[in-house]
């Protein structure tokens, strides 16, 4: 696999929807520690709508699929997760552009960095604030780093997924400075940020499309 086609992208997003469905209660339980225990339910509402949208997306170019994914997420999830996931996909769509027939590896590097920047812009989040950014930024950085070392696209996607998972795990030790968890101060320390955990699921789904078919 040298580029990401529309079919690859649809498989990736469908895989993300499946992972969110499987992890729904786990994500909500993480949210209960410092928030209102609804991240899994809210995100699942969005990814169910996303999966429905994907069924008719086969004829679209990848940028349009990403744009539609952003609009679906922002209009079905609500809360900060909806705004942020919407921003992530819309910024990726803008980076890919409407014309590209497939997403080249370098184009994806730009799209991932644009997505991380989108979280910063929309939520004023900085690295270490215990947010989605703490999974997103390490993944974008690891992906770009792997490419520049000459790694293949599947290997770079694997590196991004590993970095996202490590980034999410590292949020357990952080004190939240953005979002609802920030209201509880030091009591936010000790659990993984649910938004970072769901971003790790997105990158796990991306790595899956690069893996050899079973």
């Amino acid at each position, binding site marked *: 696999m040298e580029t990401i086609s529309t079919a690859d992208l649809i498989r990736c997003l469908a895989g993300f929807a499946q992972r969110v469905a499987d992890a729904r209660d786990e994500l*909500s339980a993480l949210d*209960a520690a*410092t*928030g*209102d*225990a*609804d991240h899994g*339910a*809210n995100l699942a*509402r969005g990814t169910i709508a996303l999966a429905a949208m994907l069924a008719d997306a086969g004829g679209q170019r990848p940028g349009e699929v990403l744009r539609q994914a952003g609009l679906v997420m*922002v*209009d*079905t*999830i*609500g*809360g*900060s*997760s*909806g*705004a*942020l996931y*919407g921003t992530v996909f819309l910024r990726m769509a803008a980076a890919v552009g409407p014309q590209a027939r497939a997403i080249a590896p370098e184009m994806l590097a730009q799209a991932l960095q644009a997505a991380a920047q989108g979280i910063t812009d*929309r*939520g004023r989040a900085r690295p270490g604030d215990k947010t989605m950014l703490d999974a997103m930024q390490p993944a974008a950085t690891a992906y770009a780093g792997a490419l520049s070392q000459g790694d293949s696209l599947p290997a770079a996607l694997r590196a991004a997924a590993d970095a996202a998972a490590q980034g999410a795990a590292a949020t357990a030790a952080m004190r*939240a*400075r*953005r*979002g*609802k968890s*920030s*209201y*509880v*101060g030091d*009591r936010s320390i000790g659990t993984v940020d649910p938004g970072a955990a769901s971003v790790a699921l997105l990158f796990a789904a991306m790595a899956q499309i690069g893996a050899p078919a079973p």
Partner: protein
Amino acid sequence: MKKFINDPRDVVTDYLTGLEAAHPGVVRFDRDSRILLRAQPARGKVALVAGGGSGCEPLHTGFVGRGMLDAVCPGAIFTSPVPRQIIAATRAADAGAGVVHIVKNFTGEVMNFGIAQEIMAFDGIRAETVLVNDDVTVPDDDDSAGRRGLGATVLVEKIAGAAAERGDDLARVVAIARQVVARARTFSVGLTSCTTPERGRPTYVMAADEMDLGIGISGSPGRDRVPLAPARDVARMLADPVLDDLRPAPGAQLLVMLSGLGGTPESELYLLYGDVASHLRDRGFDPVRALVGNLVTSLDQQGAALTILALDDELTALWDAPVHTQALRWGM
């Protein structure tokens, strides 16, 4: 979980259906857009639009009607509305004299109103934002999402609503609303958490002899967990942080709102209010207006939130002005 529900996913729609059925002369529920409007739209006045996570009723849906809000976009339980709803509510409320968005300072609410405003700007529709951030729990610095919008939201909606109803222009309504925000503070105490329909069990569990200080409005944990105390001590624990932050002038006339969180009986709220009022007088203030009841809630959470507004003559007159909504009605 024991609740009157059909399907957890339908609780907001089903609630709004019932609200319209009970008060057809006051509100109209637009199912397609999932927004709540006045039964008789106002003409030629500044429109007030609010919206936030459901589960905090009567906020905001109970405050739609003459003298208060024009349109409300309710989100899922404890989840802010989505841009599509916010845009629909803004378009429906716009009566030609400008629109005010009353936004509680919660990350999701701020982001979704922000995205909605960016989208509406393409069509030349503008709304003025009044950000409500009255919660003294959260330090006013960059190490958090900032002070939450809590009980002061009701006071903004009532007082700015009265200003709009008497014909004040957009700039004046916004200025009055911001004055209310600047002169109001809130602090809350939780005795339990709450049970959301989706989760089906309490968001967290506290020991029987503990309470949470500095909670918000979504059943989330508070900032400090302390031993349960007699009501007269709780009254001081609520009032002192509010007064110390607000710093009203000695002898100031105060509007005191004591809101239950949904699961505390009115008798307990009035019991607590008596202790609050007495403490306020001891500290040299004059509580001249009181509103006690379930106003800004978190489903079935037990607890209370104290909001204090430092009044002046104009704010008092606007507070006393006629209002007719599901949850507040006087003078008409």
